[in-house]
């Protein structure tokens, strides 16, 4: 009951206003942007945000690193596509089943991998992702080189794929759900246990936290989100091909969370927007893009390890201080008058 009457500090108010403003802008955006490619472009950001949030659960929250998360997108995508193409189960349900299947695969991978030291875990995930790509290429019924067409997403009788405005709002809703769940997770017992494991696994172990259990759980949650993102990506694009799941693409998700800020709710959002924008601006300059992404990672790790969110937080704090000062000034002025 206490929380209902909680008074917010100015900084919290500033943050809330900023988030609300962003949400409103994004909600009315399709009224002004009618170009269907642009809308597809924004819908795709939703995929990236979900996948990057998933990776952030693993990297930011539980302190494990993976350079192979594209593999979970591949499993999610292919499982969902195969299910919907061959069984006729509604696509939305297929996507959820695929996400759970992907989480299962993540768990199976995590059981032996969670005991590995950081660098070796990276290696294992790289190997896993390379292996997955090769596996897809060797399964001929997936038509890996020319790709498979996917079914349309239908939600309550509405064909989402018929207009990219629908997918835009669907992306928005999915992202909102994922972000809320993620912020709940970070406040829950499991989330705090994962953070304890990240900060010091020995002391976490000493406090009675089952280290292996939470590492595996983090892996499963992140595989769930990435699998869902993969399934959504496949149905959004209408097409699935093995080349969208090559190992180097995993780096992009790491880039997003490093740019946005690890272990934050909005880090992946900022990162995904930045990534998609840069990708579009530098579409023809592949080499420059690679250099730029590398440099971004190097700079952010050295100078802004908290990512853009840390920078924005600092700015928000400054703004809040300014507002406080201003209000205090007004108050004294009013007091002086009376």
């Amino acid at each position: 009951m206490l929380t209902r009457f909680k008074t917010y500090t100015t900084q919290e108010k500033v943050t809330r206003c900023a988030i609300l403003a962003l949400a409103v802008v994004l909600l009315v955006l399709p009224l002004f942007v009618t170009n269907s490619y642009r809308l597809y472009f924004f819908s795709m950001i939703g995929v990236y945000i979900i996948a990057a949030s998933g990776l952030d659960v693993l990297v930011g929250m539980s302190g494990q690193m993976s350079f192979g998360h594209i593999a979970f997108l591949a499993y999610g995508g292919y499982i969902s596509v195969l299910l919907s193409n061959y069984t006729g189960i509604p696509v939305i349900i297929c996507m959820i089943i695929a996400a759970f299947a992907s989480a299962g695969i993540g768990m199976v991978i995590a059981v032996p991998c969670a005991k590995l030291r950081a660098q070796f875990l990276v290696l294992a995930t790289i190997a896993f992702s390379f292996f997955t790509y090769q596996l897809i290429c060797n399964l001929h019924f997936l038509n890996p080189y020319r790709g498979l067409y996917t079914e349309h997403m239908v939600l309550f009788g509405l064909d989402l794929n018929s207009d990219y405005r629908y997918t835009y709002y669907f992306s928005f809703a999915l992202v909102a759900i994922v972000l809320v769940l993620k912020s709940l997770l970070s406040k829950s017992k499991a989330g705090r246990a994962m953070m304890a494991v990240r900060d010091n696994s020995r002391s976490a172990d000493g406090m009675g936290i089952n280290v292996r259990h939470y590492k595996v759980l983090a892996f499963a949650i992140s595989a769930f989100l990435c699998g869902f993102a993969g399934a959504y990506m496949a149905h959004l694009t209408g097409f699935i091909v093995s080349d969208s799941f090559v190992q180097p693409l995993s780096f992009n998700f790491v880039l997003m969370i490093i740019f946005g800020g690890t272990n934050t709710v909005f880090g992946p959002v900022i990162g995904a927007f930045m990534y998609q924008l840069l990708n579009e601006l530098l579409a023809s300059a592949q080499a420059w893009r690679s250099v730029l992404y590398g440099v971004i990672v190097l700079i952010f790790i050295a100078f802004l390890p908290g990512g853009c969110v840390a920078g924005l937080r600092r700015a928000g704090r400054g703004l809040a201080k300014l507002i406080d000062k201003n209000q205090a000034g007004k108050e004294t002025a009013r007091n002086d008058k009376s």
Partner: protein
Amino acid sequence: MLISVIIAGLVMGAIYGMVGLGFSIIFRASGIMNLAQSEMITLASLIGVTLYQTVGLSFWLALALTMLIMFAFGALLQLGIISKYSDRGVAGIYMVLVTLGLSKVINGGCELIFGANPIQFPSVFSVSTVNILGAFVTPERILSFFLSALGMLVIHLFLTKTKVGIATRACASDAVAAEACGINVVKSNAVVWGLASAVAAMCGMMLGPIYGAAISLGSKVGTKGMASSVSGGFGNIYGAMVGGLLLGIVESFVGGYVNSTMKDMVAYLLLFLMLCVRPTGLFNEQAVRDV
């Protein structure tokens, strides 16, 4: 068939072993998994082919010069970038990310300088194939095998007999104690990175005639190199060679008798299973965390 499969396995295995050696040397000395190592191979092969073909040096001169350039590049990379991050106390998982970022920069830089198209590596010898017990092998492959063996021997002698080599081993086993004995740890680390880059240069020059010099070369063999290091025991330089030969033979047999498209899959599966089942590799005990 059997003999040619075995020879192909041994040749590729020796090269994978050399690639893995590059990873192992650095990991042993500084505990950093250097993902930029594979792009060093790309860079080296591109520099090598430029010196050999465009400048027109002899193969051996081009090899020596490439190794020298790469040694300097690797040492500068450690002094200029990696040591800065280590001094800041960047955590292990982010250190891997730093090397990955570097590899992106190097790869993009290679593409900007040398172009995206693969460059045909001209053959080194005038003879096109050599007959060994009925199997026809290109002389470049035989050269690669013996170069790897020679490289391994030279590195072994360097690490055990020379003063600088012994100093780098001392730093690897205990940096603080080594510093107390008057060894310059910073310089020693730079030597190690330079050495690993020179090894990468050798790999690049050996792989060039086989795959052609291209910007995708590093990613193609890098993971195989990691697989050989892991199966031999990461950080153990002799283990890397054994692991490389093992991987080469397995891959060659799968490619020869099962299906050539399954070849790569088996290599990655081997790496993954090795990490799951026996992360310590055949000769090392560092990969497992105690909790």
